[in-house]
């Protein structure tokens, strides 16, 4: 287990990177504490797998350093870094039994056989593989194989960090949540530092204490799941996390007042000065409600999802989604909506503008 520090890390797959687009990973500084559960979340091509491979040592960064517990490991091989990694698609050694597969990383490091046996049995029990230990790994289903991959990642107790690269891609949707929670359980049990890469918000938020949201090779926000939901620092985070995502509406700031389409929007902490750049107002559908004294809109569409209703309303050219409770009556005569003043925020060029006035 280790504290992981990334210092001004940059990486490019191009021989001589010139412009910004050549960088798969733009300058990055991160510090991860020992024993934490972290997730790297972002759409495909955002650089999360690159970052993972740099940490595990499969890739050498173009610039910057990787430190484990303060020691520079940038030039070390994966073996010497003592890391474990689980890949997107199951990797099993077809020739071996399930037991031998799980024991493989331990035996390669000369662990005594009784210790191997004990550790493998423990991990197998946790992943519910104990009935299959004598079976040949090649005969298993994709789920079973991926469990073996997970098991091999978890079987060593001396690792600095365990890394998961979208490990649930091949798992049947109905089993996903089982493994998701298993991983969480494993983390609590073993207390390893774990890093989990995914594009699936549910996996990231469920697994991690701290989620790192990435876009285009940059980190846009690091925070707890609650932070990301309630206070997205970037419109991308607001849009990417949550379904439906955050409403993002053009706005203007004038003398401490926020104006959307001619209407003043009350905010608890409006920006003090007029920020530079394109200004937008971001508010999640959960924090929009019908209110008699709000902004006049027209209702476009209502999706009744049983547990709640997703209502799409329109104000001029702008579509706004809001969530109404189960069975709540949707006003048909001159509906008006209001934004939760504590949760609506102003964004300049995509980035959240810190509020001035205290609540």
């Amino acid at each position, binding site marked *: 287990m280790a504290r992981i520090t990334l210092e001004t890390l940059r990486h490019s797959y191009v021989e001589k990177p010139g412009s910004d687009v050549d960088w798969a990973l733009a300058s990055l500084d991160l510090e991860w504490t020992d024993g934490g559960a972290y997730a790297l979340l972002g*759409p*495909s091509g955002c650089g999360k797998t690159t970052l993972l491979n740099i940490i595990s040592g499969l890739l050498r960064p173009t610039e910057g350093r990787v430190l484990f517990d303060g020691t520079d490991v940038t030039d070390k091989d994966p073996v010497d870094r003592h890391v474990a990694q689980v890949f997107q698609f199951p990797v099993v050694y077809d020739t071996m039994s399930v037991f031998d597969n799980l024991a493989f990383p331990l035996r390669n490091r000369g662990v005594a056989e009784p210790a191997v046996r004990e550790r493998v049995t423990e991990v197998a029990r946790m992943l519910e593989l104990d009935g299959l230990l004598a079976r040949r790994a090649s005969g298993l289903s994709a789920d079973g194989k991926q469990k073996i991959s997970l098991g091999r990642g978890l079987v060593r107790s001396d690792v600095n960090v365990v890394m998961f690269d979208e490990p649930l891609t091949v798992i*049947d*949707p*109905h089993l996903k*949540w089982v493994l*998701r*929670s298993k991983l*969480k*359980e494993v983390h*609590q049990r073993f207390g390893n530092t774990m890093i989990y890469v995914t*594009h*699936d*918000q*549910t996996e990231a*938020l*469920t697994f991690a204490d701290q989620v790192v949201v990435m876009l285009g090779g940059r980190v846009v926000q690091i925070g*707890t*799941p*609650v932070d*990301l*939901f*309630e206070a997205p620092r970037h419109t991308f985070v607001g*849009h*990417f*996390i*949550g*379904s*439906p*995502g955050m409403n993002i509406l053009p706005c203007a700031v004038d003398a401490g007042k926020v104006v959307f389409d001619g209407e003043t929007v009350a905010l608890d902490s409006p920006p003090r000065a007029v920020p530079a750049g394109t200004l937008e107002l971001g508010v*999640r*559908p*959960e924090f929009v409600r019908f209110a008699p004294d709000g902004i006049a809109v027209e209702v476009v569409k209502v*999706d*009744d*999802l*049983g*547990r*709640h209703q*997703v209502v799409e309303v329109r104000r001029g050219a702008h579509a706004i989604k809001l*969530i109404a*409770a*189960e069975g709540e009556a949707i006003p048909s005569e001159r509906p008006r909506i209001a934004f939760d003043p504590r949760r609506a925020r102003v964004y300049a060029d995509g980035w959240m503008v810190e509020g001035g006035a205290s609540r």
Partner: protein
Amino acid sequence: MTLELNGVVKRVGREVHIHETDLTLEPGAFNILLGTTLAGKTTLMRIMAGLERPTAGAVRVDGRDVTGVPVRKRNVSMVYQQFINYPNLDVFENIASPLRVARRAEAEVRSRVGRVAELLRLTPYLRRRPAELSGGQQQRTALARALVKDAELVLLDEPLANLDYKLREELRDELPRLLSERGVTVVYATSEPTEALLLGGHTATLHEGRVTQHGETREVHRAPVDLTTARVFSDPPLNTASVRKAGATVHLSDRIDWPALGAAGTLPDGYYTVGIRPYHLTPRPLDGDAVAMTAHVLVAELSGSESIVHARLGDSTWVSQSHGVHAVAVGSDETFFMHPGRCLYFDAAGRRVGG
């Protein structure tokens, strides 16, 4: 157009894939086939398309028996879960292909392909090959090809399942709009209850090769006829438990009971299965009738805008679903509120009873 299945059965070897099924699609509307993998959605859809011949029974279009008619003689179009496009043709020719086969005039092909490509935002990619497109663009191309044909019946077999969820959201929003304008009959297979609800229209729930219920989507969700349907149409899984109704009280165990409100009110005393939807078991009460109970938190799942908590209550595991992202400590005891008036009750045969 109307499409009817009369007593359709599909057997392969000794296995029965579809049990005797009667189904009439709602003309000009979204018809959703909802069920888990292997429930028989794809088979049913392939029979409708004419890609497979039923072992018994008939498929009727506008009253005419078309059972043996091969697919290319029917006016249908189909989109698969995998992104299926002709790899040797560019996007334009891919979309144009049904028109080319039908020998339409060049000008007509151009204008129709142009229009559909515009709708699906494919215009910038028309000269690319499918392999050079992202998954979302590939599936859009497949959809465009299905749309350009002006088929009477459009079959969509889990078309969004292989896409990232943000893309899925986007396309799910667009699809009903694109299709309802044309007034075609759509069949849409999905394994996700939420998707069915978002798409609306009509839903047939499938379980192990049988249609368990068919009706308006919201109605099927709100009032499932039996336990199987309720289970199929619930994600996260429906909480079920065996209860005993005695007088004005429903007993779950010696210690936990609640007033017999709602559906339970009219039931005779006896044993029932109660179904509580995860969103009716919440960390905060939804209404005044809520009954509080304490459960041991096993797992907390956070999706982007909802929290799903699996908790142990007595000797069964229950699932609670609530709005927003909440930090829930795993291993702690939390109070949950259930809402007796919103429960579903099923008799021993699994039929829904009461209210």
